[in-house]
């Protein structure tokens, strides 16, 4: 029955395409993430505006946890899959290898190419081709509770990772909060993002010039040792080892932490009295740097929107992507995710009411460090996630754990 429908559908589509009347009612199926950046409500509102402006196109938006996003994109490779998918900056290499995403280079005009931040373009570019449009330009920021800092006698957030430890220790010693630091260090990509942030600030590298793992020495090793030491010193909430981004937000928003590393979306949510008990006391700064090495640290956590090669509605899908990534729409919904457009960062409407967020973003977005580009990224990341956990749980030393991960990853290559 279904096979017949598909055949009939295919024939009908052929006829329509041939007659040039391709604008019957179309339903697009789009895949988004329910984790950070734009909220479900944002996506719903944007989509409703798109539908109003484009009669005849309906959009079903599907939101899944980040943890399920990659597998959903891979698993939906058939005629009943998605027309638009949100994907992470680390996947295009793999997707290109399996030809999962449409090359849309020819659809992007020069004005767009010039207007979007360079860092954002890295999200969708692989091997010279464009596999979609960047939509989320995001990185991890250091959030701090201004009241707790003041109580401990600090009037500025830490500029270096060492200073972060000093401030945290002072706050703990004064009994202001038991565990001043909270992170998303569960066995997940979120932990890799935190690790990459610190690694970049400590001058580390994932892969050396020959593409061999290099994170098990230098800044990469320093970063993990730093993470473990904050646990050993009782500065980091030990439950961080089972947290994702939303747990971090909840712990910080309920006033149980003085510092948190999280994506930009947390700024306006932690300042919203309906969502948070620390509203009004939330500070944001670029993640700190290291003396003599870096001024700030950041990970490239950007995401893009692409069209799966098997989509039957590529024209409409592109229209939807153009709409969502347009400067106008992004400027309007700039509270949880900052635009990918350079001009937006000097647009008063975007800046208004969230000056500290935009200010921090200007610094952070400029120093975003990439996670490694490799076709087997998912697997490499899984090996590294396990290594981080083993070290953080004390099952092995940071050096041992990273050495093992490095060996596993070189075997993959």
């Amino acid at each position, binding site marked *: 029955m279904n096979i017949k429908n598909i055949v009939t559908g295919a024939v009908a589509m052929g006829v329509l395409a041939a007659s040039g009347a391709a604008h019957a009612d179309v339903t697009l199926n789009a895949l988004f993430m329910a984790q950070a950046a734009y909220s479900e409500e944002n996506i719903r509102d944007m989509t409703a505006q798109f539908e109003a402006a484009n009669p005849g196109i309906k959009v079903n938006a599907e939101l899944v946890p980040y*943890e399920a996003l*990659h*597998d959903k994109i*891979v*698993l939906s*490779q058939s005629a009943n899959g998605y027309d638009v998918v949100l994907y992470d900056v680390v996947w295009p290499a793999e997707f290109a290898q*399996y030809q*999962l995403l449409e090359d849309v280079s020819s659809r992007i005009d020069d004005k767009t190419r010039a207007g979007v931040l360079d860092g954002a373009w890295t999200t969708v570019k692989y091997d010279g081709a464009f596999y979609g449009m960047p939509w989320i330009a995001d990185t991890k920021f250091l959030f701090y509770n201004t009241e707790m800092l003041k109580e401990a006698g600090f009037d500025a957030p830490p500029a270096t990772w060492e200073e972060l430890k000093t401030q945290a220790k002072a706050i703990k010693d004064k009994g202001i909060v038991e565990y001043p630091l909270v992170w998303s260090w*569960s*066995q*997940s990509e979120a932990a890799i993002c935190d690790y990459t942030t610190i690694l970049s600030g400590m001058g580390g590298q994932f892969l050396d010039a020959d593409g061999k793992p290099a994170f098990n020495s230098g800044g990469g090793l320093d970063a993990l040792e730093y993470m473990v030491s904050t646990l050993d010193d009782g500065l980091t909430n*030990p*439950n961080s*080892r*089972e947290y994702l981004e939303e*747990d971090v937000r*909840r*712990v910080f928003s*309920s006033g*149980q932490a003085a510092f948190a590393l999280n994506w930009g979306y947390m700024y306006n949510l932690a300042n919203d009295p309906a969502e948070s008990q620390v509203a009004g006391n939330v500070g944001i700064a670029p993640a700190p740097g290291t003396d003599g090495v870096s001024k700030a640290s950041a990970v490239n956590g950007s995401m893009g929107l692409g069209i799966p090669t098997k989509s039957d509605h590529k024209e409409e899908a592109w229209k939807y992507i153009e709409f969502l990534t347009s400067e106008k729409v992004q400027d309007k919904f700039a509270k949880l995710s900052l635009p990918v457009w350079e001009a937006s960062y000097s647009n008063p409407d975007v800046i208004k009411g969230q000056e500290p967020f935009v200010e921090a973003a200007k610094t952070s977005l400029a120093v975003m460090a990439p996670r490694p580009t490799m076709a*087997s990224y*998912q*697997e490499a990341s*899984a090996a590294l996630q*396990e290594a981080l*956990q*083993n070290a953080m*749980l004390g*099952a092995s030393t940071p050096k041992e754990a990273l050495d093992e991960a490095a060996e596993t990853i070189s075997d993959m290559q």
Partner: protein
Amino acid sequence: MISQRKTVTAWLLLTPMIVIILGVSGYPLIKTIYYSLTGAKLIAPDLTSVWVGLDNYVRALSSGKFLEAIWHTTYFAVISVGAEMVIGVLVALLLNEAFAGRTVLRAMLILPLALPTVVNAMMWRLVYNPDFGALNALLVQIGMLDAYRSWLGDPASALDMVILADVWKNFPLVALIALAALQTVPKDLYEAATLDGAGVWNRFWRITLPAIMGPLSVALVLRTIEAFKVFDIIYVMTRGGPASSTKTVSFYVYQEAFAYMRVGSGASYALIVVLISSCLIAGYMYLIRKQGEV
């Protein structure tokens, strides 16, 4: 002549079932065996399937992580089924006594059993939440725990906590089966034994246990086979973490094939699991044949 026609009818009546089983289970099983000998990828598997012989199996059996996953699965199965058996029998013994509220209590056993596995997993994940979960709050408030702790974030306790959730859902099954068996034991057997001077313990070993052993052993093997498949409760509660301490074989196969797209080696992992399950299934077949239930 008649018996020949009967045979034809017999096979005709079986046809729909055979067609469906062959199509949905038989053919895929053979194809899995084929995939396991190739390097097939998830996308266009038939185009990418390069014959690699037994390489996938060799790699699987020499992979420490896979063997670890087998160990986690075995631990999960043995501990959870063991606990379900003991608790189930105790509950059945209790419900076999006459007391007010017995019927209500027996009806309550249906609740965990009918609760969808995913809902059960989610419910316990909320209960175990390190900051806002009920377990920490309860234990601290009654003084059994000094400070909040992480239940699912600690490799030393994570798998046990998952097991606890599984036991809560499945012990009623064992209890109901054991209870049905208990009710077939004649009361005068106990009275006679009591007159002989046998104590409670003695009566349990001599009369009760032998009487319910049959159905109980069936339930034991069935639950073990089920426990070996465990996936959904892990997926919802821990996704294999922390430090991969709750990664079971089903989760491992899922990851290999659907996250890393290696259908070939995923299939070889799956078949190793099948081999282990087959031993259990054979045990089960032996039991039901012995009891003449088929």
